[in-house]
């Protein structure tokens, strides 16, 4: 019983870790977004992609927060 709870906890921890690493990888992989097209609303890809990822980062980190918070 306790063991089961423990393993559920570590799965959530690993999952939260992955959620936190995703934005880091997305931003450090610079060549993946160092381009002008496709443009959105006049913005070159380079700019709207990085601004969009800020929003995605908040969502991913928010999810990680709830994953580790509910474990008590």
């Amino acid at each position, binding site marked *: 019983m306790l063991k089961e709870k423990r393993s559920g906890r570590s799965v959530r921890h690993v999952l939260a870790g992955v959620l*936190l*690493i995703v*934005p*880091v990888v997305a*931003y*450090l992989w*610079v*060549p993946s977004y*160092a*381009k*002008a097209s496709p*443009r959105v*609303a*006049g*913005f*070159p890809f*380079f*700019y709207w992609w*990085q*601004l969009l*990822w*800020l*929003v995605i*980062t*908040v969502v991913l*980190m*928010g999810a*990680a*927060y709830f994953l580790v*918070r509910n474990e*008590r």
Partner: protein
Amino acid sequence: MRSPELGIFAFFVLFVTVLGFLAARWRGGGELQTLDEWGLGGRRFGTAVTWFLLGGDLYTAYTFIAVPAAVFASGALGFWSIPYGAIAYPLLFVIGPRLWSVSQRHGYVTAADFVRGRFGSRLLGLAVAVTGILAIMPYIALQLVGMQSVLTVMGLSGTGFARDLPLLIAFALLAAYTYSSGLRAPALIAFVKDTLIYLVVLVAIFVLPAKLGGWEHIFGAAQSALAKPNPATGKPSGTLITGAASNWAYGTLALGSSLAIFIYPHAFTGIVSASRGETVRRNSVLIPAYSLILGLLALLGYLARADHSTASAVAQAKNPQLAVPLLFEHLLPHWFAGIAFAAIGVGALVPAAIMSIAAANLFTRNIYRAYLRPTAPDREETKVAKIVSLLVKAGALVFVLGFSQSLSINLQLLGGIWVVQTVPAIVLGVLTRWFHRWALLAGWAVGMVYGTLTAYHSSSPTQAHFASPTAPLPFSGPTVYIALTAFVLNMLVTVALTLVLKALRASTGSDETSPADYGRNAVQRQSGRSGDTT
């Protein structure tokens, strides 16, 4: 001189001065006789206050001037501060609550306190403290530079004493209320600062592009302006998109800086003044909202490129730092430009206050108490910190008024490199005690020396030294952020020497912290006091 702008600017500076003094009584300040009360606001700030405090800390007036200036001057490369934030916060998510918890448990006020306790080494604590103080001094000076650029655009550019007077007044007021209210003052003023900044950036980003023919046109104009050869170097000044050569610089600038973002003394102060570890973690999730604002603000650099009158005025002044103030001056109604300038002015006061408090805490705890007067009672400790906070600000003023701006900028560049060298002791120190204290000290020294020399020798056709935060990797390789190269060297030395010292069974010193001090459960037991009111 523009009187409506100046009037609004003066109004806000006076308004936050009143707030600053009133802050002493905010949240049961009482007498402010301990460093916990004066220097950390009683460790009682909830999620919202911490959000404003950390935001006010990390996104400074200088940031608001320098980031668009970098985008104006060099294009895509100047945008690196956007990924920088996004990479830093996951790290804060993991480390922040642990650092908070152990600091709460042992009454640590500074990062150097933690390092001393963790590794049982007063000397390593001193190294961290000195690094922090050295790194933060030019940063405070740059807040003044940010304020100065706004004052210049408002027409306060007389000569000699008359030119410096407004800055002196603003800083004297700041020094007075920081002295009396401690960290509560910037925490309260940060609300005003952020409200103003958000208002200005959102209005600017929705109103101005239409005036300049829309985003498509703005990016086009910026691209052709950046492609023109710079008269000084004969090369294009930048590109709209990073290329194969600059991708490395872009990524490493973001990564290297993100390692240090929250161990800068002022950010550490923001973390440990929170009421709970949970508050810190919540903030790591919520703070990227600032990065979004910063991203929009960075794009104002391109608006300044696209607006002919602004671009030529900046070129004439030979100072890209005036890009945003001049853009506001040219394209916004005077009264609104006044609000924008007030936002930048107040945006300089908040971090300058927190930084001077952080420097004062470091000096008092890790130099004065650790070496000079180990038996100093709390009351004396607080008194010393208050006086040091005044000295630090006076020093920054002398810096800005007495030397050229570029000195502060160069030193801040160095400061960024230096702070990263304390990452192994602080950030990794939270996670593991495997490293040996002497190895950490040696690694730190190697990183400091390499980073300083490499930055010093970085030259360009226009600048003999400190031309760029990036340099080619030793031997051959891509151009990367110097701090990161220095950090890798630092780590190599630290790991190698740790292995050697362990083989030699050198004394590892005692660790006054225990694993439970870093954990969630320890936090819950500790945070019984009711402080988190937001």
